[in-house]
């Protein structure tokens, strides 16, 4: 690896290794403490009271009854909630989504927090919340597309345009030899990480200490500092372990702030743990979409136009529109392309980032529509996709930093046995009489880079320290980033002290957008490079060092030693250099960020191809995915087993997207009908087939110094589409409404 601007070369052997999780021992012994596992001295319990109506006002709360219950210490309502430095509806930045934290009696969605009861025990606080017996003035709700007006939003996702495209789509469709005009519906999804949101908050004067699961500690510090009118550095967040995030813990949520406010109110540490059913509302969800796809192709099966129209819903009080158009911008070559959004306001919480926001929902519609067009053209769906392979990014014309999608298609197809696929639907039945079908979907996800800083240290005992405020929600940051750090310092893992997970460490950016390893990894790469450079500098100036005067040629680091690049037989250990110089340690700091020149001139995406086999019981309409093969190319792989785990986990979410999950709202009351794990179908192990991920080699020298692209979200994309397409191949029926439940196939 080269450090930019110096001639040094660093060697290491940890990147690319299948190391087991560093925090594995803590997790398998129960010693890893998640937020709700903490019990500071004097701690009280806080329980949310949440709204049973979706729209209206709280007209009464029986605070006296609650307070009279033994063990109840206080009740926090809009009347006595600690004053905030500014109203939580003020948009101080694009990520400051509006929070419901007891500013008034208004109710904007079901499960909105309306009070907090603090008690000496969980039992007492829970009883207090029940005794509040809220009364409401309820208003009519809107939770369906047909029940309200649509409008063109100002922006979608985070600041993306509501309309983008080029070429003449209408002409392209008019002149097409084959056309499809179809609409795909995707439902709302909730993250349902196994760990509910929780916070243990303690004020020490004006200093705030919190244990809470966070995918973005620095951004949380900023938000909380603004809300409470204190300095960000006076907020200490501990989040070493998250019980899953999936985007739901990226931004601080209202209930977490309420825990902090409760601690302020009672002057004692407070633990607030959300119950599963309370998570359906205040912490975000994947917005529901209706996607109208119009595609045209010429007589050879070449696309002539793609028109992707997305209708999606946000809340009444804030804007986030699920950005489903992204895949159309980046995947298939077409002379004319148009993506347009319309929005609606529902009486729900504000939708937000859920694993692969935009890409997941857009992918199933695009892959389904592409498949339908392939069918109209009489072409094999894989051949059709290859025919319309994009050599440059379709929306912008930019070249890709790297794109190994052809290898993904080829290797995935070969492993799956795609070549034997009959073209027509309903041609395969197995020995038990189950209809069998094979489908394909293309997977893609942008290779984002955010901004991060890191600090590295080399010590006089020859060990190293690397610190960065990175986040491990299960994706393996503790391990993968440590591998990068160890190689960055040319040390063995056991000589490295590696710290993440607390907010006093340098800002690593949010663990989201599949960007964390690339972003934080780049910062670590640069910080360790700076430490090595600093160490080399000391040696190169020291007349008694074998490295004296090696300045122009540079040094090589390996196994805790520096050697001259111009004569690698001459060198010495880190420990020797430092102790001779009389120093305890040497430090290096570094940043990780996107290279603006690359971002402006290139498109950076990870790619994949997913192949699915389904079996359908024609009498029951029951669909089982029996085989799933995904081949993915995402640049350099830091830890193959962990990367594989992310692909597998993502593909499972894709199965779930196609067949299982949907959040159902009661259209009269606006309340979630299935706000629990009994009725919201998170896949159980019997739902999951044999899944295989193939890691395709891909070198990318442009995307960042380490050549890393993200892998956490791409597995969903392509998979849901592959399954939906396989269902068509088995049954001849196109189901365009997710999830594909039994009754949709029969009725």
């Amino acid at each position, binding site marked *: 690896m080269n450090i930019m601007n110096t001639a040094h070369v660093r060697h290491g052997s940890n990147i690319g290794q299948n190391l*087991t*999780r560093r*925090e*594995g*021992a*803590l*997790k*398998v*012994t*129960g*010693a*890893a*403490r*998640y937020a*709700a*596992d903490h*019990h500071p001295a004097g701690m009280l319990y806080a329980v949310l009271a949440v709204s049973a109506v979706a729209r209206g006002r709280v007209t009464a709360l029986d605070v006296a009854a609650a307070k009279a219950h*033994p*063990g109840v210490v206080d009740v926090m309502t809009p009347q006595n909630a600690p004053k905030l430095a500014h109203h939580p509806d003020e948009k101080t930045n694009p990520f400051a989504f509006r929070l419901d934290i007891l500013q008034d009696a208004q109710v904007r969605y079901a499960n909105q927090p309306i009070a907090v009861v603090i008690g000496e*025990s*969980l*039992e007492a606080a829970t009883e207090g919340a029940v005794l509040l017996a809220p009364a409401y003035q309820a208003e009519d709700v809107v939770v369906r597309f047909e029940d309200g007006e649509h409008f063109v939003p100002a922006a979608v996702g985070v600041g993306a345009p509501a309309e983008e495209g080029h070429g003449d789509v209408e002409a392209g469709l008019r002149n097409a030899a084959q056309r499809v005009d179809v609409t795909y519906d995707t439902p709302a999804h909730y993250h*349902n*990480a*196994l*760990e*509910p949101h929780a916070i243990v908050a303690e004020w020490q004067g004006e200093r705030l200490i919190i244990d809470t699961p966070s995918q973005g500690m620095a951004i949380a510090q900023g938000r909380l500092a603004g809300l409470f009118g204190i300095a960000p550095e006076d907020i200490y967040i501990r989040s070493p*372990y*998250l*019980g*899953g*995030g*999936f985007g739901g813990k990226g931004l601080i949520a209202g209930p977490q702030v309420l825990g902090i406010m409760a601690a302020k109110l009672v002057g004692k540490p407070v633990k607030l*743990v959300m*119950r*599963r*059913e309370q998570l359906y509302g205040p912490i975000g969800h994947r917005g529901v979409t209706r996607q109208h796809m119009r595609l045209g192709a010429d007589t050879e099966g070449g696309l002539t136009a793609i028109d992707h129209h997305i209708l999606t819903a946000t809340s009444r009080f804030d804007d986030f529109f699920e950005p489903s158009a992204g895949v159309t911008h980046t995947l298939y070559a077409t002379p004319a392309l148009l993506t347009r959004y319309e929005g609606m306001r529902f009486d729900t919480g504000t939708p937000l980032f859920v694993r692969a926001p935009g890409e997941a929902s857009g992918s199933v519609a695009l892959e389904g529509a592409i498949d339908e067009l392939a069918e109209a053209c009489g072409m094999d769906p894989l051949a059709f996709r290859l025919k319309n392979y994009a050599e440059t990014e379709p929306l912008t014309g930019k070249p890709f930093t790297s794109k190994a999608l052809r290898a993904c298609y080829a290797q995935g197809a070969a492993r799956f046995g795609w070549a034997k696929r009959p073209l027509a639907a309903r041609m395969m039945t197995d020995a038990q009489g189950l209809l069998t079908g094979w489908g394909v979907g293309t997977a893609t996800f942008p290779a984002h880079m955010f901004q991060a800083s890191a600090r590295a240290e080399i010590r006089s005992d020859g060990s190293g320290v690397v610190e960065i405020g990175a986040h491990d*929600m*299960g*994706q*393996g940051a503790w391990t993968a980033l440590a591998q990068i750090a160890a190689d960055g310092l040319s040390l063995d893992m056991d000589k490295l002290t590696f710290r993440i997970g607390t907010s006093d460490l340098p800002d690593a950016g949010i663990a989201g957008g599949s960007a964390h390893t690339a972003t934080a990894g780049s910062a670590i790469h640069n910080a360790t490079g700076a430490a090595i450079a600093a160490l080399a500098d000391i040696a190169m100036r020291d007349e008694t060092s074998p490295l004296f005067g090696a300045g122009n040629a540079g040094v090589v680091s390996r196994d805790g030693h520096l050697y001259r690049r111009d004569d690698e037989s001459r060198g010495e250990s880190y420990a020797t250099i430092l102790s001779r110089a009389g120093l305890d340690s040497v430090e290096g700091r570094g940043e990780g960020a996107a290279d603006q020149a690359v971002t402006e001139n290139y498109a950076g995406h990870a790619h994949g191809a997913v192949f699915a086999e389904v079996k359908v019981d024609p009498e029951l309409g029951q669909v089982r995915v029996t085989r799933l093969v995904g081949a993915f190319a995402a640049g350099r792989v830091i830890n193959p*087993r*962990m990367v594989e*785990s992310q692909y*597998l*986990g993502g*593909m*499972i979410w894709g199965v779930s997207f196609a067949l299982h999950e949907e959040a159902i709202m009661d259209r009269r009351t606006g309340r979630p009908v299935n706000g*629990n*794990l*009994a009725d919201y179908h*998170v*896949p*159980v*192990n*019997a739902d*999951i087939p*044999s*899944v295989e991920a193939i890691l395709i080699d891909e070198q990318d020298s442009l995307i960042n110094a380490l050549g890393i692209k993200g892998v956490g979200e791409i597995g969903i994309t392509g998979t849901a589409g592959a399954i939906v397409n396989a269902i068509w191949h088995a049954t001849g029926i196109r189901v365009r409404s997710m999830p594909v439940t039994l009754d949709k196939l029969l009725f």
Partner: protein
Amino acid sequence: MKKSPVSMTINGQPVEELVEPRTLLIHFLREQLNLTGAHIGCETSHCGACTIDLDGKSVKSCTIFTLQAEGAHIRTIEGMAAADGTLHALQEAFREKHGLQCGYCTPGMILRAWRLLQENPDPTDAEIRFGIAGNLCRCTGYQNIVAAIKHAAILMAGAQQKEAAE
């Protein structure tokens, strides 16, 4: 609310406490005894993150009132490793075979897998899958969990053989 005395044995240690009748066993473990390895993931007895071993059976401790466990012998994740810290074969296997990501379901999975292997020391993949049907995982897709349990079965059989030979 008036508290009642309760006593039981947890990880070989006697426990005597006062507890409200409506205190669930999971909360007793986590809030009164600071045994926070068992986790809470739902409110409807589905996810299995709270699974412990009670009188020789895998049970969901969120669906048992503490007083119902009077006199019981309970094992939690904190009792799986040896006194000197040596990991149990299951713990080792979950680690080696990447049977965990976020780790939240892991203590419940391990306790369940442990009892499963007591009852059936050489299970097939299908038997493992059926046996852990009461434990949800949102991260891994279960494949590596099944592999970990399979691997643990082999390790435990090997250890038993070694013991028998000695």
